[in-house]
């Protein structure tokens, strides 16, 4: 109940913001009867209507996990974000090893297994991407390039 109400209200806010940004879209002078704002308005409108229904007729509570679980998900998020940012400067191997070890540890807290898992995944995937598929992935990135 509560979740859906909050969610619906958030969607209403986002939909209004979306419609407001749609109103800022530059319009050309070309002959274009529908125009570049109509569809975004419609989409925003539909979202708004759906959100109202969700607020007025909410579903049952989804059953949220305890706070500790959210903590772990948040850590996973930070790890993935760090991985995304570190890829360019540090290359694939080290960030991938660290990130997969961290996620592995979050799922099953056994440090040695996690570290081995990280190293294994990182080197195996690098080999697959680089040598089997021929994709471009820098192994170590700029910092180590000298």
């Amino acid at each position, binding site marked *: 109940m509560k*979740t*859906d109400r909050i*969610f619906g209200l958030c*969607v209403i806010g986002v939909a209004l913001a979306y419609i407001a940004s*749609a109103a800022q*879209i*530059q*319009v*050309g002078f*070309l*002959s*274009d*009867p*529908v*125009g*570049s704002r109509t*569809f*975004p308005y419609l*989409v*925003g409108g539909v*979202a708004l209507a*759906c*959100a109202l*229904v*969700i607020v007025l007729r909410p*579903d049952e509570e*989804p059953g949220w*996990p305890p706070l500790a*679980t959210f903590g772990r*998900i948040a850590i*996973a*998020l930070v790890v*993935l974000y760090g*991985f*995304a*940012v570190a*890829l360019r400067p540090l290359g*694939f191997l080290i960030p*991938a090893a660290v990130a*997969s*070890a961290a*996620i*592995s*540890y*979050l*799922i*099953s807290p*056994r440090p040695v*297994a*996690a570290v081995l*898992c990280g190293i*294994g*995944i990182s080197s195996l*995937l*690098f080999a697959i*991407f680089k040598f089997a*598929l*021929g*994709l471009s*992935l820098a192994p170590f990135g700029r910092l180590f390039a000298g």
Partner: protein
Amino acid sequence: MDLWANLAQGFAVALTFSTLMLAVGGCFIGTVIGSLPGLGPSNGVAILIPLAFSLGLDATEALVLMTSVYYGAMYGGRISSILLNIPGDEPALMTTLDGYPMARKGRAGDALVLSGVASFVGALLATIGLMLLAPILARIAFLFGPAEYFALYLLAFCTLGGLASKNQAKAALAAAIGLGLAMIGLDNQTGIPRLTFGEIHLMDGIDFLVAIVGLFAVAEIFIYMESHGRNSAIGVKLERITVPVRDIANSTFTMLRSTAIGFVAGLLPGAGASLGSFLAYMAEKSVARDGATFGTGNPRGVAAPEAGNNAAAGGALVPMLTLGVPGSGTTAVLLALLLTLNITPGPLLFSERPEVVWGLIAALLIANFVLLVMNVPMVKLFVRILSVPPWILLPGIAMVSFGGIYSLSGSAFDLILMIIFGIFGYLFRKIGVPTVPIILGILLGNNMEDSLRRAMVISDGDWTYLFSSGISIGLWVAAIAGFVAPLFLRNLLTRPGRIHG
């Protein structure tokens, strides 16, 4: 007969030891690429183009390799859809709906075999259709102007309601979210960027692969962490793998119907494999007596989208070869390959370069049989994935997704976008907002808007233009029927299905 002579010529070109080896290799690589989230058939083909050059392959060999990879990836996409609830590529999206529930029940092997057979049927019949009718079918593309395309997309969105059984408002909201995201980027009809906030990475719009990988793969990791693997197929006790003869027999007509729908969707350059598999699934759901069990692991819900998307992949070759119009990302890459081989697809390709066309058709037939033979025994190998301990499998999935997407785009922006999609994917799953309509919205939103606006430009804003042809009226009727009266649609389509049941 001419046809047999042509086909014999095609096989003479395509059936040598080295090409057969290329077909086997291509099918294998394609299957692997298709099954990796973030790498789809178009990428698979693009990946191997340089390889084709560095191996010094001639035109036929290159085509055999590429079509094998293409079909292989179409087959492979279903594997991660079924086992992990992560579509390996966008046409395999619909296969998650029933494939994954089957896997959760321990029937991953059955689902994989069944979908392999369905893929085979769809692709084989589509190839035959291409072979017999391509020059005639090409004309269908001429009949579809903006008004007809708009009605077609409308049909897709109108039937969406039938997809979500629980909360229609949330399904509609999901579609709106997808459409809203699709609006981001350069506006095709004015050349002016919309909703990009000056960010150059958003100029081309949001990539649906980023959205798919985020909403499915990244979200799956969070879901697993929360539930400690309850409700996951990972680690489920697997049933012994047999060929599910009964499911296959029960799905015969499903496969045939879905093949027809998928093939026609493939013929239309603006529609493509994703729409083909979606419409095949929705039609089957409304036809089936047990339509209500679609989404809970109904085998026919696995057969329909797989037959549909593989048939669409074959159908999409028709406009590509005869008009030079690529109907999908993959055919666009294949088209590029043909051009680099100095083969210009177009209305004269069939008469001017018969050896290429028939060699290609022979290659498709070969690839299909290779894939069937390769895929069914390999199911035993595939399902082992579910026995990999989650503390290895999940970080592996994350790294495959991130590494794959990064090595393609080289942009951290896409990865961060993917993480954001992952967060929302998790929240949406908890709240009960279905993610499939979001992807459909992103995939089809621009096409839908563009076709409406093109139609209105052509007609000077006269709305009646939208209903000015028999085809568009037919599609409007179907769309309205699909929206308001699923029962009506059921009666319309159910006839061939009565035989079994």
